[in-house]
C-alpha cells in the first residue's frame, strides 16, 4: 500500500503541477485527501507490517500520521479559501497545490520509514517542497525567507548525513551494515561510543532545523512567517513532528546504549536554551505570526524536557507533540482570516477583533488559552505530567527556571492577544473590511475540541498506542 500511496500521491502532484483548470484542480486535491485518509486507515489496520523493505507503521508513526491526516483536510480547505481571495496566476496556484501534496506525502513517508537513510531522503524532499510554499508570494521578503530556509536546511541535512555516516562506521564494527532502526536498537549496547556520540550530536543538530530547537531554529521562524497561513500551519505542526520523529528514533537507540545520560544532558541544554530564546523573542516580537512560531519553539523545548525527564515524561512528550500540532495549526488557520481583515500581521495595526469577526475572535481567545496550556486544554495535562516527571527525576532547578520563563511567555502572549481582541486599532478604516463567513472557523473548533478530548479523556486505543511507542525506552 505504501508503494501505491507514494506513486498515487506523486502522480497527483504532477497532474496538479501541469493542470490549469480550477475544477479539475479541486477534484485532484479531494482525490489526494481520500488517498491520504485511505492510506492512514490501511496503515492503522496493518501495524508494524513491513512494506517495500523500508516502511513499517509503528505506533509512533501511526499516531503522527493520523495527526497529519486530520490536519491536512482543513489545510487544503483553507488553502482553497486563501487562493480564491487572491489574484494569483494559475501557474502559481498549480505550484502551490503540487508542493503541498509533495510536502504532505514526504512527511507521511518519513513518519513511517524504518530506515534512517530513507527518513533522510524524505526530509530532504520536505525542504524542497516547503520552499516552494514559502516563496508563494514572490516578493523580496518571501525570497529572503525562502533563501534562509533552504540554506539552513541544506546545511542541517548535510549534518544529518554526516551523522548517518558516523553511525555506519560504528555499525561496521558491530558486524552489520543495516541502518534500520530495529537493528540499531538491537545493536545499541555494543556500538562504539566515540562514533555514536558524534553521530548523535550531528543528527540531533541537523534535525533541530525541522524540530525548531536551538541551534538551528532560526530559519523555521522566517519560513512560518512568510509562508501563506495554511502552509505555515503545516510547517509549525506536522513538519516539526517530523523533526521529532527523526530525533526520537535515534534517541531510543542511544537510550539503550551507555550514552543515555550524556544524551539527556545534550537535549536538556538545547531544550532549556530554546525555551529561553522563545521567551526573549516572545516579549519583544510585534508580528503575530512570528509570535506563534516562537511559541512553537517553546513547546518543542517542553517536549524535549519530557524526553529528558523520562518515566511518565515520555508519555507526556508524545501526547504534547500531538496536541500541540492541533492547537498551533488552528491558530495559524485563524491567522489567515486576521490578515484578510487588517491586511497586516503587525500587532500595531490590529485590534478590536471581536467587533469585526466574533467567531474568529472566539477561536483566537480559545487558541490562546489552549496554547498557554490552561485547562481545559489537553496541553495542560501533558505539561503537568512533564513537570511532574521533571520533579520526580530531580531536575528541580530546571523546573523552576522553566516555570519562570513560561510565566513570562504567558504574559507576553496574553498582552498581544488581548490587544488584538479588545483594544481598538489605531487609524484602522472600518469601511471596507471583508465579512468573514463563520463557517470558515468550524475546522479550528474541531481541532481545538480534539485537543480537549484527547487530553482529558483519551480513548484507550490512543493511550496504548503511545505506550507502545515508548516501550523500547528504559523506564
Amino acid at each position, binding site marked *: 500500500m505504501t508503494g501505491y500511496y507514494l506513486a498515487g500521491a506523486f502522480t497527483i502532484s504532477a497532474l496538479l503541477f501541469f493542470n490549469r483548470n480550477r475544477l479539475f484542480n479541486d477534484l485532484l486535491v479531494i482525490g489526494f485527501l481520500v488517498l491520504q485518509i485511505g492510506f492512514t486507515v490501511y496503515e492503522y489496520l496493518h501495524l508494524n507490517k513491513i512494506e517495500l523493505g523500508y516502511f513499517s507503521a509503528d505506533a509512533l508513526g501511526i499516531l503522527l500520521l493520523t495527526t497529519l491526516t486530520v490536519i491536512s483536510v482543513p489545510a487544503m480547505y483553507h488553502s482553497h479559501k486563501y487562493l480564491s481571495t487572491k489574484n494569483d496566476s494559475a501557474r502559481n496556484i498549480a505550484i502551490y497545490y503540487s508542493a503541498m501534496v509533495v510536502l504532505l506525502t514526504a512527511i507521511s513517508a518519513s513518519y513511517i520509514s524504518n530506515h534512517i537513510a530513507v527518513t533522510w531522503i524524505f526530509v*530532504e524532499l520536505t525542504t524542497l517542497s516547503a520552499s516552494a510554499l514559502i516563496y508563494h508570494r514572490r516578493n*523580496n521578503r518571501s525570497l529572503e525567507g525562502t533563501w534562509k530556509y*533552504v540554506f539552513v536546511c541544506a546545511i542541517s541535512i548535510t549534518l544529518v548525513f554526516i551523522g548517518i555516516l558516523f553511525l555506519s562506521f560504528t555499525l561496521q564494527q558491530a558486524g552489520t551494515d543495516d541502518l534500520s532502526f530495529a537493528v540499531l536498537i538491537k545493536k545499541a549496547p555494543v556500538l562504539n561510543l566515540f562514533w555514536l556520540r558524534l553521530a548523535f550530536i550531528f543528527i540531533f543538530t541537523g534535525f533541530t532545523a525541522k524540530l525548531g530547537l536551538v541551534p538551528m531554529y532560526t530559519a523555521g521562524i522566517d519560513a512560518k512567517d512568510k509562508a501563506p497561513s495554511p502552509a505555515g500551519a503545516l510547517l509549525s505542526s506536522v513538519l516539526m513532528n517530523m523533526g521529532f520523529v527523526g530525533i526520537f528514533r535515534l534517541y531510543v537507540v542511544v537510550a539503550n546504549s551507555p550514552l543515555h545520560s550524556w544524551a539527556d544532558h545534550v537535549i536538556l541544554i538545547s531544550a532549556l536554551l530554546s525555551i529561553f530564546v522563545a521567551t526573549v523573542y516572545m516579549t519583544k516580537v510585534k508580528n503575530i505570526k512570528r509570535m506563534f512560531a516562537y511559541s512553537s519553539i517553546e513547546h518543542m523545548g517542553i517536549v524535549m524536557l519530557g524526553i529528558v525527564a523520562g518515566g511518565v515524561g515520555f508519555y507526556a512528550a508524545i501526547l504534547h507533540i500531538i496536541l500541540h500540532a492541533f492547537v498551533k495549526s488552528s491558530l495559524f488557520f485563524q491567522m489567515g482570516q486576521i490578515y484578510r481583515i487588517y491586511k497586516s500581521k503587525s500587532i500595531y495595526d490590529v485590534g478590536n477583533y471581536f467587533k469585526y469577526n466574533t467567531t474568529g475572535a472566539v477561536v483566537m481567545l480559545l487558541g490562546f488559552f489552549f496554547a498557554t496550556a490552561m485547562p481545559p486544554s489537553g496541553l495542560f495535562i501533558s505539561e503537568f505530567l512533564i513537570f511532574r516527571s521533571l520533579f520526580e527525576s530531580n531536575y528541580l532547578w530546571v523546573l523552576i527556571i522553566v516555570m519562570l520563563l513560561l510565566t513570562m511567555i504567558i504574559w507576553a502572549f496574553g498582552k498581544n492577544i488581548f490587544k488584538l481582541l479588545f483594544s481598538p486599532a489605531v487609524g484602522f478604516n472600518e469601511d471596507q473590511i471583508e465579512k468573514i463567513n463563520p463557517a470558515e472557523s468550524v475546522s479550528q473548533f474541531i481541532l481545538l475540541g480534539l485537543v480537549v478530548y484527547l487530553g482529558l479523556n483519551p480513548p484507550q486505543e490512543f493511550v496504548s498506542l503511545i505506550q507502545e511507542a515508548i516501550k523500547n525506552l528504559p523506564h
Partner: protein
Amino acid sequence: MTNVLLIIFTISLLYLGIAHRLFTYIKILSFQGVILFGIAFIELNHINAINLAFILLESIIFKAIAIPLFLNHVMKRNRITRDAEPFLPNFISLIIITSIIIATFILSNAIADSRISKIYFVVAISTLFTGLYIIVTRNKIITHVMGYLIIENGVFILSLAVGNEMPMLLNLGILLDIFASVFLLGIFVNKIGDVLKDVDVDQLKNLKD
C-alpha cells in the same frame, strides 16, 4: 597515493583561506573535484562497475566541470564583483583554518577503530569546518554557496571511507550533492540576482524581530 591526494586536498583548504578573488575560489572547487575523482578512482575497487562509473562521472563532470562553469556564468550574469570581501584579514583566516586542521588531528587520536583510516576523518571534518568558516566570514551570497559546496566535498570524502562496504550511502551523498547544487545554484542564485540588484547578504536583513 590516496594519502598524497588527501593531503593536497587539505592544502587546497589553506589556499582557500588566503584567496582574494572569487575566480580563485571557483578554480579551487574545480581542482578539488579532480582530486576527489582521483581518490574515488583509486579507492573504490570493490563496488560494481555501473555504480563506480556513476560516482566517477559525478565527481569529474559535476564537481570539476559543471558547477565551476555554472558559478562562472552566475557571476558574469549578475555582475558580481570579483572580491571575496572577507570580514577578517587573510592572515587570521589562515591561522584559523590551520587550527581547525590541528584540532581535528587531535580529535582523531580518540578513534580506537582500525577499520576506518584516520586520515579520511581528519580531512573530511576539517573540510566541513573550513566550509562553515568560509560561510560565516564572507559577505556575498555566492560565497555562502561556495562554502556549502566545500562542505559537500568534505561529506564526499567521508562517504568514500565507507564506500566499499556501503555504496548506498555514497549514492545518497551524491543525491544530496545534486539536490543542493541544482537547487541552491540553479533556482536561487538566479532568482536572487533577478530580484535584488546587488547580491550581498546585507540585502537579506529585513526579516527580524
